[in-house]
């Protein structure tokens, strides 16, 4: 069995309560950090651990913390990004539902490290049950002296609040999240200034994902060096993977980074293979925003070596033959699924969620949705396929925030790897309404390294 740092006690009855959580070693990290370490030493441990942001960008958490400006007399804030909305990702909801104290404990340690006296957990509004769970956990922690004034007699004060969102994917982008927390529309801000200089209420602010903050607990308990020993290369530690789609056992799994993708999909310890005895056609490995890959490139790199669940291995080959770790939302498509339909579905999602601030994204996502709709419904033209590629390129890199890129990549990658299937929809407009293109050659071994040229 692989090592579990976050979900080790997930099946212990009552682990959502403070008492049971403490019996299993909870809040040791708060005691250790506040009583024996300086804030800078906590930051140093997190830096040593090599922990990378678990929300999708993969930026080193310790480095992000060290960028925080500390002007005299100005408040600093820690804001936890629990606005989990990326299609395919549901690990944070799982963690907050079953082990809320793991997040609360991480928030206390991280707030101490950053010198924050008030911290917020921004939870997407649809997760009202999780908001209630967190509020109850905060009340328990406060009653036990882990929050409030003079925590554990150390003189450190911290108030922790849960803030509900209003239902907007864009608020997962950190500056949109801060706008929303200030009671405004979730329009991303132009950077710089980065939140580390001017974030919430114009004050220095760090925004971290739920899983990143929860991972601080084992890092402080065992030391950054121990955490760094888990994983492979620059992908250190464990990662929560949300597995969904046509799998025998979808769900949330904690893996040691570096696990072969094939083992993750097919072993009984994890997803247990493809549901209903079908074959794997394609995967989206890191949440809907990352490039979709056919089965063959999911399991193996272009050179035939096994692909691993790590930041580096998943992105090996660039966008020509690779994808990204993203937020760890692993979606599996069986042989009966239609890539054109799914691409249309994702395009509709991004059109719906575009905040409307930048015209390439506001207009482009709508165009892509329309063109994909007509391809999927048998009214497409051959030229539509290249039109989609053209629109996606005009969005990518031309917007304030990464939502534009996130909308462009799934479309561009679907056409890159599944162009046959798109063309079939144009050539067989009636047949494509009744049946699917099937698995075709997408699971066949790759004969030689693929060279994809794009103009």
């Amino acid at each position, binding site marked *: 069995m692989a090592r579990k740092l976050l979900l080790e006690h997930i099946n212990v009855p009552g682990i959502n309560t403070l008492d049971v959580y403490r019996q299993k070693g909870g809040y040791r990290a708060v005691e250790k950090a506040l009583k024996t370490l300086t804030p800078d030493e906590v930051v140093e441990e997190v830096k040593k651990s090599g922990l990378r942001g678990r929300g999708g960008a993969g930026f080193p958490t310790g480095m992000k913390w060290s960028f925080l400006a500390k002007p005299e007399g100005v408040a600093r804030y820690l804001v936890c990004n629990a606005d989990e909305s990326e299609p395919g990702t*549901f690990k944070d909801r799982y963690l907050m539902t079953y082990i809320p104290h793991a997040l609360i404990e991480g928030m206390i340690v991280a707030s101490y490290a950053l010198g924050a006296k008030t911290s917020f957990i921004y939870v997407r509004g649809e997760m009202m049950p999780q908001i209630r769970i967190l509020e109850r956990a905060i009340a328990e922690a406060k009653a036990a002296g882990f929050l409030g004034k003079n925590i554990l007699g150390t003189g450190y004060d911290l108030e922790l609040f849960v*803030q509900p969102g209003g239902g907007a994917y864009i608020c997962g982008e950190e500056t949109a999240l801060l706008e929303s927390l*200030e009671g405004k529309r*979730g329009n991303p801000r132009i950077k710089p200034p980065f939140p580390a200089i001017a974030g919430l209420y114009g004050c220095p602010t760090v925004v971290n994902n739920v899983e990143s903050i929860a991972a601080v607990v084992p890092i402080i308990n065992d030391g950054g060096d121990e955490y760094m020993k888990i994983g492979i290369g620059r992908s250190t530690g464990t990662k929560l993977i949300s597995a969904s789609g046509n799998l025998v056992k979808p769900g949330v799994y904690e893996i040691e980074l570096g696990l072969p993708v094939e083992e993750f999909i097919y072993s009984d310890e994890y997803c247990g293979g493809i549901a209903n005895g079908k074959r794997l056609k394609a995967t989206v490995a890191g949440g809907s925003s990352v490039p979709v890959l056919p089965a063959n490139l999911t399991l193996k790199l272009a050179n035939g070596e096994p692909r691993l669940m790590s930041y580096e291995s998943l992105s090996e080959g660039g966008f020509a033959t690779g994808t990204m770790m993203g937020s760890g939302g692993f979606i599996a498509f069986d042989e009966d699924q239609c890539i054109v339909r799914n691409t249309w579905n994702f395009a509709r999602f991004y059109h719906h969620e575009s905040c409307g601030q930048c015209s390439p994204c506001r207009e482009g996502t709508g165009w892509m949705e329309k063109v994909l709709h007509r391809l999927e419904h048998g009214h497409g033209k051959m030229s539509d396929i290249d039109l989609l590629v053209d629109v996606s390129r005009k969005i990518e890199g031309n917007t304030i925030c990464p939502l534009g890129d996130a909308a462009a990549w799934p479309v561009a990658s679907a056409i890159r790897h599944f162009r046959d299937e798109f063309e079939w929809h144009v050539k067989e407009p009636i047949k494509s309404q009744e049946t699917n293109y099937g698995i075709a050659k997408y699971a066949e071994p790759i004969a030689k390294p693929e060279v994809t040229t794009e103009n």
Partner: protein
Amino acid sequence: MLKVEEQQPVTFSSALIAKCDEISSRYPEGKQKSALLPILHEVQAERGWLSAAAMDKVAEYLKIEPIEVYEVASFYSMYFLKPQGKYVLEVCRTGPCCLVGAEKLMDHIEGTLGVKEGEVTADGLFSWRGVECLAACGFGPVLQIGPEYTFYENLDAQKVDTLIEELRKK
């Protein structure tokens, strides 16, 4: 988009005002606008939807301009700007849920309730709509019902029928 359907001034219950006071106290002095999103959730939970008059009342409470409330309420997908059924069935319609049958489920709900997406049943009990990813992809198809936003997971037509029957009897 904002049709005025409620003309009478709105009064909030004392319980709602106490809740708003508690929420506002979380933020630093002068930053009470931060309370806007949570307060709108509370108002919607009490009143079922956000009328222009109710939003004006929120603006008055937070000492901000009404437009600051309208622009927020119309930006976020959870706020209802027109009356809904007592129970709003919100079904996830995004990719992963569609891989396991969400589209068929929505067709089934439309047939069972006999109303199109966004419409209210004649008895005022139900409306339904497709919403984007609810972060429960491994347990799809899923739907949620406000104001508590209870999740119903691993759904099929039969489970939804049972759920609708239970809600009818409540």
